[in-house]
């Protein structure tokens, strides 16, 4: 009996002790992501949290650096034929998937082909492609039907969908089916057994990963992992996340709401910083199928009363965390300009807007702004737009719901009396609006276009001209033409550029300045 009691007591003490010593000595980075990781497939969804997961576990053939140059990543060397029709790629030595299998040319081809079925730029590349061919396990070729100057830029695309390389067996999955195998060849391994959706995602260092020698710059360069384990701890409540960071229970909070910045800034052990050089762009999107916004003058009227400064403050809380951006391309990137932006700049002209409304023949049709009150960025924009529309005499109302309802309803093509809509708001990260190839809200392909379904043949022609631009100067000129037309046609109204800063404990060092939170190179002292 005594022995049994002793054994029970020992077991109780053992269970009361914290986790093993080996585990305690590991360097664990505790990171609070901006959203909960639910979908593992970075090709099946454009969700940014899944893209970020992709950067943890996968690698890319090429990557873009901070100067917008395309740099090789998994590729060691490449050649472009004189006729610009054949690209030959050779992989680096020692590339291995997490299951120990070598990365082969066939894996790269299957991955790129799957990506090209979902991504807009990938589809454009696929249109120009005659075929991909594996020369041997390390070398493969891309044969084009016609020169496509953006081929390498496409393979280095930094934001959703990113052309991540997966094993061929995974990449052969239908592009519209969500994969659940996160085997990659990237710097971290996903630990599926510890994944608790809605709470925790665990990655461990991929000890087989061979980083490049170059310094990291955005997603290019050496991906040197300096911690043993990364835990993404999803904390849905902002106040709790702030308290957890203050108390040192977590090391890094990816994105915080503006109202908590002063609270965290007061803590000397915490750094609050903007590490996203491009920020995000807010926008108003119209339904082009029905009155009143099927008339360009109605859209122009709204543009004349949108004050970006108001929207930036509404979204970011503090003017320091945002700025007006009178461009259809992300401010701070090579194609950004203010060409044609007069209707969006300067003093807001309500009288002009009213005249445009009259010229458009507005008959008092009801305007429905669909809103998502669980998304502060969407909600604040919706309220400001409602106010603006009312000021110019439009019969507008907000119909509020959650984000899930909004993105379902915006797919409804019916008139508003049958569940349709007139306006919704959203935002895109900077890299998703840097040029006409990735800037999908500009597209004017009717039924195949983004929600709102504008038909704008001129925009499609101008976009095509941009794709065919032979050099940087021609590219800039073509992009200017796209923008000039956009300010007349008004596919969206940009509402400003804003930043949601990040906050981390001071013992965290080596944070990479990039439009995506990248966790390699990060040290925990």
């Amino acid at each position, binding site marked *: 009996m005594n022995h049994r009691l002793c054994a029970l007591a020992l077991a109780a003490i053992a269970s009361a002790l914290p986790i093993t010593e080996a585990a305690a000595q590991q360097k664990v980075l505790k990171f609070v992501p901006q959203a909960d990781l639910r979908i593992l497939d970075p090709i099946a969804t*454009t969700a940014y949290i899944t893209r970020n997961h992709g950067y943890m576990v996968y690698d890319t053939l090429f990557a873009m650096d901070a100067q917008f140059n395309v740099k090789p990543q998994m590729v060691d060397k490449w050649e472009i034929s004189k006729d610009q029709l054949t690209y030959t790629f050779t992989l680096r030595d020692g590339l291995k998937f997490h299951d120990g299998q070598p990365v082969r040319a066939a894996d790269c081809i299957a991955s790129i082909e799957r990506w090209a079925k979902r991504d807009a730029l990938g589809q454009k590349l696929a249109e120009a492609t005659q075929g991909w061919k594996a020369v041997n396990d390390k070398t493969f070729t891309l044969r084009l039907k016609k020169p496509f100057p953006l081929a390498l830029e496409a393979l280095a695309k930094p934001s959703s969908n990113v052309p991540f390389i997966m094993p061929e067996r995974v990449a052969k999955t239908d592009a519209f089916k969500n994969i659940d195998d996160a085997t990659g060849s990237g710097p971290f391994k996903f630990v599926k057994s510890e994944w608790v959706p809605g709470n925790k995602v665990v990655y461990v260092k991929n000890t087989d990963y061979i980083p490049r020698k170059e310094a990291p710059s955005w997603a290019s360069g050496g991906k040197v992992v300096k911690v043993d384990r990364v835990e993404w701890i999803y904390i849905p409540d902002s106040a709790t996340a702030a308290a957890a960071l203050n108390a040192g229970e977590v090391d890094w909070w990816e994105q915080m709401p503006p109202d908590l910045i002063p609270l965290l800034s007061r803590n000397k052990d915490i750094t609050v910083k903007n590490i996203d050089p491009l920020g995000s762009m807010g926008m108003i999107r119209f339904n082009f199928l029905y009155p009143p916004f099927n008339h360009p003058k109605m859209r122009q009227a709204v543009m004349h009363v949108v004050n970006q400064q108001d929207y930036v403050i509404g979204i970011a809380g503090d003017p320091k965390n945002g700025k007006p951006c009178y461009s259809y391309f992300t401010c701070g990137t090579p194609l950004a300009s203010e060409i044609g932006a007069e209707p969006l700049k300067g003093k807001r002209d309500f009288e002009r807007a009213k005249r445009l409304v009259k010229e458009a023949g507005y008959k008092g049709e009801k305007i429905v702004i669909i809103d998502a009150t669980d998304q502060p960025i969407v909600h604040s924009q919706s309220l400001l737009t409602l106010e603006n529309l009312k000021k110019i005499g439009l019969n507008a109302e907000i119909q509020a719901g959650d984000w899930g*309802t909004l993105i379902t309803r915006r797919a409804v093509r019916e008139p508003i009396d049958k569940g349709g809509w007139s306006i919704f708001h959203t935002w895109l990260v900077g890299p998703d609006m840097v040029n006409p190839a990735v800037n999908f809200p500009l597209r004017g392909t009717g039924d195949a276009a983004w929600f709102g379904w504008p038909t704008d043949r001129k925009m499609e022609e101008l976009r095509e001209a941009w794709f065919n631009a032979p050099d940087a100067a021609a590219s800039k000129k073509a992009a200017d033409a796209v923008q000039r037309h956009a300010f007349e046609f008004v596919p969206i109204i940009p509402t400003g550029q804003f930043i949601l800063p990040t906050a981390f404990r001071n013992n965290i060092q080596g944070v990479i300045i990039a439009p995506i939170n990248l966790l390699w190179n990060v040290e925990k002292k």
Partner: protein
Amino acid sequence: MFAYVVRRLFATIVVMAVVALVVFLLLYLTPGDPAAILAGDAATSDDIRRIREKLGLDEPFLVRFGGWLWRLLHGDLGISIFTNLPVTHLIAQRIEPTLSLTLCTLLISVLVAVPLGVVAAARAGTWIDRAVMGFSVLGFSLPVFVLAYILILTFSIGLDWLPVQGYRPIRDGVWEWARHLVLPSTALGTVYIALIARITRASMLDVLSQDYVRTAQAKGLAPHAVLTGHALKNAAVPIVTVIGIGIGLLIGGAIVTETVFAIPGIGRLTVDSILRRDYPIIQGVVLLFSASYVLINLAVDLSYMFFDPRIRY
């Protein structure tokens, strides 16, 4: 009694079948499309249509319901649309935190509330009674999230005694497990302490006015023996009923507490799934809730026989 239990268990199956049908119908009629959420912000209508086809969401109601029911009869609750993980696995991941939180909250609530109620009844009309009732009103009035933040501010940030958030499984150590449950259980338990204390007081006051209590007092029994041995047992039926209802409410109703303290429980799983229209999880969780409620009610009904031998089934 055996026949009664069998009858009640049979009724459970009928209840769950009705719940299954109603839930499926409600979800079918609710606006929202998981395919649109899965595709992401940049997707086109065509992308969404193709994803919907792959998920079988474009099939008629009866085909979908029939398929789900067939799988359910085989013990398969389906696969989450988003995570691709089995619903049973996701529920299993969440059961331990929710049960831990529920049991700790109940334990704290009962251990604090029943003595408070008994003392308030025994000292009815005194300042003790008024203090207990005052606390009870405060417990009802204070929103859980406000109390949660006050507790975090005081015990986690200010004193650095307890963790702000998270849950540690019991296998990581009893101490860590308990430390992570103290604040959430206290925040969640306050309203139950208030409720149970009031019910206990009212029930005890009723019993204390009975003749047999006066007889026990006249026999010269010690006051605590009269209170606990005679009065409390006879006052227990309504108290147990409230505790039983409380268990049911706690299993599904701890959403705010789980959110504030970032505890990966069933409540948060439910809310997250509703926001994303992850139908298989919603259906699975609602079935679990309904089974829990019915079985807890059965257990409460059976417990009446222990507290009041006059009750027979």
